[in-house]
């Protein structure tokens, strides 16, 4: 593709990305779906989508929403109505603040992330987890799981805190949660001697979070993801797997085609604007989740 065609493709994409802003609520935040109140996750991913497109200034309203909805302790909850619930959104806040140059807000969010710890517990006979490893929970005072641990690691890595002891232990946590045959699910690998099924979105997220820290584990799971691309249909799964494969230098053409096709479909009942934003991030080919 020539340079002019490249520019046209980028312009067309940015035009479509702009349509995401049509869904902003009057308070400047983004709902998961039209008609809902604003929530942190779609709002913060929208900011990251515009950063990825090189259009950060156009996300001013979502940025202001995020700044207004931050908690005093540096975290962010689901929204103003539920500030103490859903603090698993805080890594997304740290990442958004990182990219827009709000260092103080980023550091406050990272401080909160480092204070948040999952519960450890006695090893049980039913599963084969290393239950003494600390990761990150969805909800305070509960156990650690793959997705919140991955987001916390991504935020720390983006801020250059890759070697913080919590990051090192978090990576060991993720390595431990990998299913023996490959892939990750929500965070259990074997229960009652049955190996559980991997999910492709959490597999991609865990691999993004682990980065290049464990090449053999990454390669085994990247191969698995590549083999299963034909099964992948949903926007969020395709977007996360696309980002993961791109990070590791693997081909993403097929996934990019699928993401473009889904984003071009008429918006129906199943619209999830957090997933749309993730789709745009994947299409941008710029790194915003990783350094």
């Amino acid at each position, binding site marked *: 593709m020539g340079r002019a065609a490249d520019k046209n493709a980028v312009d067309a994409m940015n035009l479509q990305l702009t349509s995401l802003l049509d869904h902003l609520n009057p308070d400047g935040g983004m709902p998961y779906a039209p008609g809902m109140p604003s929530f942190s996750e779609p709002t913060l991913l929208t900011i990251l989508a515009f950063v990825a497109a090189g259009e950060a200034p156009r996300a001013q309203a979502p940025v202001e929403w995020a700044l207004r909805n931050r908690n005093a302790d540096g975290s962010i909850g689901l929204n103003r109505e539920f500030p103490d619930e859903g603090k698993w959104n805080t890594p997304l806040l740290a990442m958004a603040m990182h990219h827009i140059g709000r260092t103080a807000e980023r550091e406050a969010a990272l401080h909160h992330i480092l204070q948040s710890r999952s519960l450890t517990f006695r090893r049980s006979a039913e599963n084969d987890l290393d239950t003494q490893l600390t990761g990150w929970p969805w*909800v305070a005072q509960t*156990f650690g799981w793959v997705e919140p641990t991955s987001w916390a690691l991504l935020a720390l890595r983006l801020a250059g805190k890759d070697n913080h002891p919590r990051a090192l232990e978090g990576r060991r946590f993720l390595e431990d949660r990998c299913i023996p045959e490959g892939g990750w699910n*929500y965070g259990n690998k074997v229960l009652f001697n049955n190996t559980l099924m991997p999910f492709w979105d959490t597999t991609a997220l865990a691999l993004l979070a682990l980065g290049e820290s464990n090449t053999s584990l990454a390669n085994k799971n990247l191969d698995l993801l590549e083999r299963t691309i034909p099964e992948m249909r949903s926007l969020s799964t395709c977007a996360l797997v696309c980002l993961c494969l791109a990070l590791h230098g693997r081909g993403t053409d097929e996934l990019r085609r699928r993401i473009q096709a889904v984003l071009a479909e008429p918006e129906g009942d*199943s619209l999830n604007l957090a997933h749309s934003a993730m789709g745009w991030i994947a299409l941008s080919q710029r790194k915003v989740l990783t350094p």
Partner: protein
Amino acid sequence: MNRRQFLRWWIGSLGAVGLGRFTGGCTARSLPVTVLNVPDLDRDFHRDFARVLAQDNLAFQGKRVLLKPNFVEFHQSRPINTDIRLIAQISEACLSLGAKEVIVGEAAGHRRDPWYSVYHPSLKNILDPKVRCVDMNHGPAVRVPNKGPYTGLSHFYVSAPVVNADVVISMPKMKTHHWMGVTLSMKNLFGTLPGIFYGWPKNPLHVRGIDNSIVDLALTVPVHYAVVDGVTGMEGDGPIMGTARHVGAVVMGKNLLAVDGTAARIMGFDPRRIPYLVKAGSHFSGLRERSIAYRGEHPSRFATKFGCLPQFAKAQKDSLF
């Protein structure tokens, strides 16, 4: 059950209800539970389901109905989830009874991606276009005071579509559960709580005791009816890793404990040996078999001893009816 048998049973059971009223409702078997013979779901049973719903005096005219199936996880070849054909037929039944709106809502417990639950194209393709699917994991919730005594939680965040519905129908799959013994209409209520509040899985409910959470939720979440998909259930290491077991029955009723107890008995489990059902029995009637008035087929016809993990074998008995 063919149509003639159904009508005969229906007229008969109307008489039984009338007799119950005449005797002041003092009959021992006062909690109706209907068991329908549904050998497979390729045939359309929606009129039969509508008759049962009508007979159970569930008002649908002009109402907003929420069907809550179980889509905890997804695997193409495992019977993990409520059969989408049953969801389609129950939604048809609700619409035929005058429902203003029917929503299929789920907050799946393990998979965050709703494409693998309520947004799966196979579900959308089979439903009447008037029926809407809602991913209850990603959306608003209402803070509802906890009416139960067990978890110590002051409140639950219940998905707004559940709270806003006039009629909520819990539609679980008939399955064994490796922690709880069985998972049926009451355990299915975990999926009324959004993941954005509780995570994937809903670990705050686990750390407070799954049995405690089931009963507190059953006391708190407004559920009006249960329809258990026992056409093909899951035995062994349920609710995810078990294997298919054909039963050919759909169990329906207003009293969730009576419905779950009946389904458990069909699976070969004595509800009085399933701790969370016993705990629920302190708050709801329906635990004792003699409190239930069976309609339709007698459940003993479908008795199918489900394979289970060894720790639950002692909860099983050969004769439960």
